């Protein structure tokens, strides 16, 4: 395009001018989105346009699944049924015991005047597909703001925490998995109550406990649950199991690798949990946290004291 067209053929601005315009527009968007998070309105508007396409794109898979389900063999169904019945009986026992205990606990709490334990509101969601972003570990689920999904909600499956709702569109929501590099979750060791923060390790599919002293009391096989002190995740949900500890005399911190308890990359149906934890406001005179919790549960590490 080195020649300039005669002026009687109107071709608009030169390609380089257009490139400069669109590139600077894109870079402005990138900066706004990455630094200031102001682009959410625009994003949700375009997401409405993209939603029907996403629905149509996921339809064949769902249809195939339904067909496969229709032709599932009788014996497999019977076996499943029997297993589920057995599970139901044992769960019913647990549930009854839990109800009794919960009532008792409520009574005791009332006695000592503590605030009632928050009610968990849960919504079942189905995974549409995993995010088409090789840099992040995200899922898109089929419910959004119109179904009452809120950013910051915890997402679990039947065995533990899977991740957190990080972005909500009107009809779909985005769940960041625990193993994403930027995701953090406050945890507690079941065995001794030691508090820590577990970070995703990116591509490896594991979690990492950072900033734990080299002599921290933690063992292979320790179970980690959510501590609930962040007010975002309900306390006591299984998160991970410690699988490897490297204590290096040179480094100040131990390197602790954990395996997520939930099928972080497996399940199709998930549950979002919201808590109405009524935490008192952060004291004015105390040091402000580095980053206000944008529902990410990122906190300064608590002092590692075993209760």
């Amino acid at each position, binding site marked *: *395009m080195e020649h300039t067209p005669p002026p009687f053929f109107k*071709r608009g601005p030169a*390609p*380089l001018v*257009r*490139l400069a*315009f*669109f*590139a600077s*527009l*894109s*870079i*402005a*968007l*990138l900066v*706004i*989105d*990455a630094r200031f998070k102001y*682009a959410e309105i*625009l*994003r949700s508007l*375009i*997401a409405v*346009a*993209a939603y029907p*396409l*996403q629905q*149509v*794109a*996921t339809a*064949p*898979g769902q249809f195939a699944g339904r067909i496969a389900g229709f032709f599932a063999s009788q014996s497999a169904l019977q076996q499943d049924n029997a297993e589920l019945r057995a599970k139901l009986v044992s769960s019913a026992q647990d549930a009854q015991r839990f109800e009794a205990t919960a009532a008792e606990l409520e009574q005791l709490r009332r006695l000592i005047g503590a605030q009632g334990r928050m009610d968990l509101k849960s919504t079942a969601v189905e995974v*549409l*597909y*995993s*995010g*088409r*972003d*090789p*840099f*992040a570990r*995200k899922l*898109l689920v089929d419910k959004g703001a119109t179904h009452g999904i809120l950013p910051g909600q915890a997402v679990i499956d039947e065995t533990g925490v899977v991740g957190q709702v990080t*972005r909500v569109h009107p009809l779909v929501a*985005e769940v960041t998995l625990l193993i994403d*590099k*930027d995701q953090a979750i406050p945890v507690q060791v079941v065995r001794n109550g030691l508090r820590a923060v577990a970070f995703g390790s*990116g*591509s490896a599919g594991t979690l990492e406990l950072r900033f734990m002293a080299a002599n921290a009391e933690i063992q292979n096989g320790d179970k980690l649950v959510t501590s609930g002190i962040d007010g975002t995740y309900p306390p006591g949900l299984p998160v991970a199991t410690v699988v490897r500890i490297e204590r290096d005399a040179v480094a100040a911190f131990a390197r602790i690798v954990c395996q997520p308890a939930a099928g972080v990359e497996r399940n199709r149906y998930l549950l979002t949990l919201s808590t109405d934890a009524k935490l008192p406001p952060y004291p004015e005179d105390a040091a402000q946290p580095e980053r206000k919790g944008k529902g990410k549960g990122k906190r300064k590490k608590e002092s590692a004291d075993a209760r």
Partner: protein
Amino acid sequence: MLAERPQYILLPVKIGTIVISFVAALLLDFLPWKDVALVPDFVALTLTFWCVRQPRLVGLGVGWLLGLIMDTGNGVLLGQHALAYSLLAFAAITLSRRILWFPWLHQAMHVALLLIGAKSVEVLVRLVAGAQFPGWTIIVGPLLGAVLWPVVSFLLLAPQRRPVEIDENRPI
């Protein structure tokens, strides 16, 4: 070499064909793929095709809008695909006079370079924004896209190859 190949006189392109091809490409991209790094970016490929074939109709604006749709649909940083597709459209338009003179294989090699360039813009943006490098498998997608170039060209040119007057005795 060029004289040996048959030259088709194509019908003028219809806007509907372009729109439908982009919608189909978006659908293919939104399919629940197992490993997204290994899947070619169909939207980028279709955009390259139309920028090469119809640089007057499809250009940077279309690329930018498609990039925005991809960004929101995939839940990535807003502007990442938009920037990559704008640059891709610009490069494709600049090369459009040149690419079509080559045979299929050489065309595909040009396209491979274009697609790898677009993908590396995306990678660069994400690395600057603080993400982790996802590994070299990410280059497989653009290469597969280049392999698909002859197929895509054939499919997208098919509507323009139809005869003006339908002849009963003619097979196609």
